[in-house]
């Protein structure tokens, strides 16, 4: 995959273009999946595993912020995307480790359990891709392309 498709020099579009769009699409899928999963879990059986389900809801929220932050342009959205992707990376690493180390604390799995193994490890890869994209975009902007 080449990185030259980013942007097409039409001033500053309001929405992210190019490769970033693919990332936004991936994030949108995960935002919908995580939020709806959390909604079902909390509505049906919150008391069974309150920690895991609250975490699911939190993860969903982070994905929504990341989707919006990457999908829109402007410094505020970008900052939101930075924070969301960082929180996500820390979250998937911490929760992934905890879910393996202390399985009893997580009787039901979340998106981040086992480093996102239930979701083909996409939850682990996504924040890294997001941060790489944000960095390359910031660099390109600084270089005044």
């Amino acid at each position, binding site marked *: 995959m080449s990185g030259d*498709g*980013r942007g*097409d020099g039409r001033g500053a579009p309001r*929405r992210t*273009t*190019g*490769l970033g*769009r*693919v990332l936004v*699409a*991936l994030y949108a*899928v995960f935002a*919908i999946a995580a939020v*709806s*999963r959390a909604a*079902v879990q909390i*509505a*049906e059986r919150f008391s069974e595993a309150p920690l895991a389900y609250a975490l699911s809801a939190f993860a969903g929220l982070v994905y929504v912020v990341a989707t919006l932050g990457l999908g829109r342009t402007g410094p505020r959205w970008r900052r939101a995307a930075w924070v969301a992707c960082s929180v996500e990376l820390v979250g998937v690493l911490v929760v992934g480790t905890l879910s393996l180390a202390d399985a009893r604390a997580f009787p039901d799995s979340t998106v981040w359990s086992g480093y996102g193994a239930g979701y083909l490890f996409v939850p682990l890869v996504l924040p890294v891709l997001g941060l790489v994209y944000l960095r390359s975009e910031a660099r390109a902007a600084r270089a005044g392309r």
Partner: protein
Amino acid sequence: MREAFPVLVEFTPVSGALVAVVCSLALLMGAWAVVTAARDRRVGRAHLVGLAVVELAVLVLLVAGVVRLVAGPRPEELATSIAYLVVAPFLLPAGTLWTLADRSRPSTLVLAVACLAVVVVAYRAFLLFEVTA
């Protein structure tokens, strides 16, 4: 979960064969989108026809799912199963609209993401419908 193959007498409108067809078509379409992006071509009418075929298969799966919910044994995770059926038909139209809205080269890859999402949703729905209460 699925120790044995489903017995023929069992009522399974959401069959493995149907899900396999949906997944294969979606994978083919996704691969086509990747090739299109790699060759730096734009999404054209042929792609839309292909997407329509995949969407048709998804709709058949949706009907099968509804038939199963109405007539067959209820899946254990009822709410989740319904959610999968509801989301499934919207994936490709959303991806298509998005791709057409920004006709840049990588934008074509959004179609591949949507197709992959269809594969995952169809397969997960299949697993959910296998586990009955």
